[in-house]
């Protein structure tokens, strides 16, 4: 039996029993829906449904590998893009481990040169070191460390949305994406009509793009030779973030970290030799005027590190795209066989995607695994595997099959 029809049949069984779990978006009749199918691997777009029953029945019958709905509201969702009549869109954020440079990616992500078949680890290079080919098949792995760092970014984003933008937690829907990240969905009448350029400003705020510390309290002498004052850790918004991020960075920065910023030797020595003093200074007015030789430009370089750690790594394209399609909550992700799981803002810290997003809880199946790093499903850990035939619980088997890391054994 081939992989795709096996996965398809399992997805079909799942939807037969669980289609009623599918969580519809608000204003369902004003949304566009889109689906990927297993068999022909085609995209079906511009679908619309009058009510949730129609949607659930459709999914049950089609058995899609991926199911999406639009963040946007349209007058006529079934029309072509130009004729739909855009009425507004919810505010969407996508956090994906793809945008986070975790160290473990070098271990579990692999790429294969399409031309010569050469394999490597981590992020695919620009060209194949063997044949110079430029096309690669990439396989990304949702490991625990990557999932944790995505969660951390999502929590930073929630702080921005609640503390800075003033959204109340009940307007915010967090979801585990079903693969390597989290989606955050803000539904609020007032933000619906924001155009793409307003959303871009929101993105820039959250990523710290275009931030100039001079507008957040960093003050110096007229020619910037010396800094006279800077923001405090308990201040709101970016002021506090700059101070906290700077504190954190100076707490542990090595000589190499500081050299990388292009700081002068004298400043680096000051920072390293007076670390205690610098840390203590936060109790009063901070270290801004403490480090001899560090002017406005040097501090701005240090603050760049603070911005990097305090900003949230979101996919900038998703948020600014006012026609975006978003995965439907409580549907299966075709690359993992896991569910997109909605949760509330205060549940995220305790949330364990590797238990909660598991859809297939019954049965075992024997598969032939080509290669897989160690992974966990629920309480159980599997692998690593290489060229081996194993009997696995359904969830673990489907995961490897969806990842194209295994084949169903006869």
């Amino acid at each position, binding site marked *: 039996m081939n992989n795709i029809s096996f996965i398809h049949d399992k997805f079909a069984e799942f939807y037969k029993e669980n289609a009623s779990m599918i969580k519809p978006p608000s204003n369902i009749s004003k949304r566009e829906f889109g689906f990927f199918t297993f068999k022909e691997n085609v995209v079906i777009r511009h679908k619309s449904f009058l009510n949730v029953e129609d949607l659930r029945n459709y999914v049950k019958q089609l058995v899609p590998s991926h199911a999406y709905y639009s963040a946007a509201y349209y007058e006529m969702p079934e029309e072509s*893009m*130009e004729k739909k009549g855009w009425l507004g869109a919810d505010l969407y954020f996508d956090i994906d481990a793809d945008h986070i440079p975790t160290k473990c990616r070098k271990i579990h992500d692999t790429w294969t040169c*399409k*031309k010569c078949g050469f394999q490597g680890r981590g992020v*695919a290079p*620009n*060209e194949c070191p063997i044949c110079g*080919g*430029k*096309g690669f098949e990439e396989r990304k792995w949702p490991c625990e460390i990557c999932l944790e760092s995505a969660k951390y970014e999502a929590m930073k984003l929630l702080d921005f949305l609640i*503390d*800075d*933008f*003033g*959204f109340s937690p009940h307007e915010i829907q967090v979801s585990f994406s079903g693969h390597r990240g989290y989606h955050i969905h803000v539904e609020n009448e*007032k*933000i619906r009509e*924001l*155009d793409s*350029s*307003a959303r*871009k*400003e*929101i*993105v*820039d*705020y959250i*990523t*710290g*793009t*275009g*931030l*100039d510390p001079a*507008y*957040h*309290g960093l003050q110096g002498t007229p020619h910037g030779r010396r800094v006279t*004052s800077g*923001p*405090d850790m308990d*201040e*709101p*918004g*970016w*002021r506090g973030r700059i101070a906290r991020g700077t504190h954190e960075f100076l707490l542990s920065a090595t000589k190499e970290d500081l050299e990388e910023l292009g700081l002068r030797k004298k400043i680096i020595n000051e920072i390293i030799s007076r670390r205690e003093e610098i840390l203590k200074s936060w109790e009063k007015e901070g270290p801004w005027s403490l480090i001899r030789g560090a002017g406005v430009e040097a501090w701005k370089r240090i603050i760049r590190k603070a911005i990097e750690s305090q900003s949230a790594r979101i996919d*900038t*394209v998703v948020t*600014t795209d006012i026609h975006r399609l978003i995965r439907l909550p409580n549907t299966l992700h075709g690359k993992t066989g896991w569910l997109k799981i909605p949760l509330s803002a205060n549940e995220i810290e305790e949330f364990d995607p590797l238990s909660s997003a598991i859809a297939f809880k019954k049965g075992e199946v024997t598969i032939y695994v080509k290669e897989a790093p160690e992974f966990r499903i629920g309480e159980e850990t599997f692998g690593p595997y290489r060229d081996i035939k194993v009997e696995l619980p359904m969830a673990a088997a489907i995961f490897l099959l969806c990842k194209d890391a295994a084949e169903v054994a006869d």
Partner: protein
Amino acid sequence: MTLTREDIAKYPFLTDAAEEVRRVNLEIQNLDNPEVESIVKRAAERIREALENNPPRVSYREREEDIEIPSFPVAIIMAAASGNNYIKRRYALGEAIRAYNLLIEEERDKILEVAETFNWRIRRVKDTIGDRRFDFAISFIDYLRNTRPFHEDRFKLVNKPLLKGEVYLTKREVARLLREEVRRRIEDKLNMEIRLELPEKLLNHIEEIKKKYAGDSEKRIFETPKGTFHEAFPPCISQLFSAAKSGQHISHLGRFTLTSFLLNIGMKIPDIVDIFRSSSDFNERLTRYQVEHIAGSRGSGTKYIPPSCETLKTHGLCPGSETCGNVKHPLASYRRRIRIFKKESQDNISGHE
């Protein structure tokens, strides 16, 4: 808000304009009336002031309410009837700057009243953040709507104090945002279809203004020179260009930026398709389709222009370069570079001047 006659003379856009226009229209039919004549004269002058001053600026005549007030709706009718976008835009901006200059002289409560007439979610505060004092807190949504065309770094949301959904602003900054609200409202009014029988005399005024100023707009447009000057590509484009040529993976937005840029500087569709040829997953039909779509020869028929520098920064496509100077758009950067490049190459020709 209870408006005094003086308030209305200062901020004539606060009253129900449709009503006002209807009323005034009855009066301008009667142009022989000397009082009406001076209103029309002032109306024409308002437009002239906007076109002659740089930046455009309409004056305020103190204690002349009887003329200041009705001349505004008449000027609106005239500017709209000109049918000329340059005149309309300059006039709207001129009136907005007039309002701004008056607003910064007002008490804070008056500014609050004006903002509230526009349904802004705004309140007075006396808060200090760091060592700066702020006068107002305004919903970030109203803030974004009214800073949309601003490009100064200090107006970027990321450079403003934002707390619980409110942006903290000084009085002067709120006046600046109000200026934008006024400009937009007047421009919207000017773009409304008006079907009025205008008296001959009024039409003459309009013709005169058009004859004198409408040409100004054309001088400002700089034609992109023919041909492709690779040396003049801004850094973002040359990066994408060489990545495409060497078959490296380029994001969707990157492909869009490169393609729309090349189309806008006049490169032909087949030449652009060729650039993507070395990509390992090159598909001639699909690439051609995408390029044609961006060129506007398919689908909606919209011809796309490349994203602005700001947008490219947001999506990590701007390599950041001192050499771009103060430009806001890759096409502008390209034109600027060509000018410099041409000048330099002329300088290099010995004996040239």
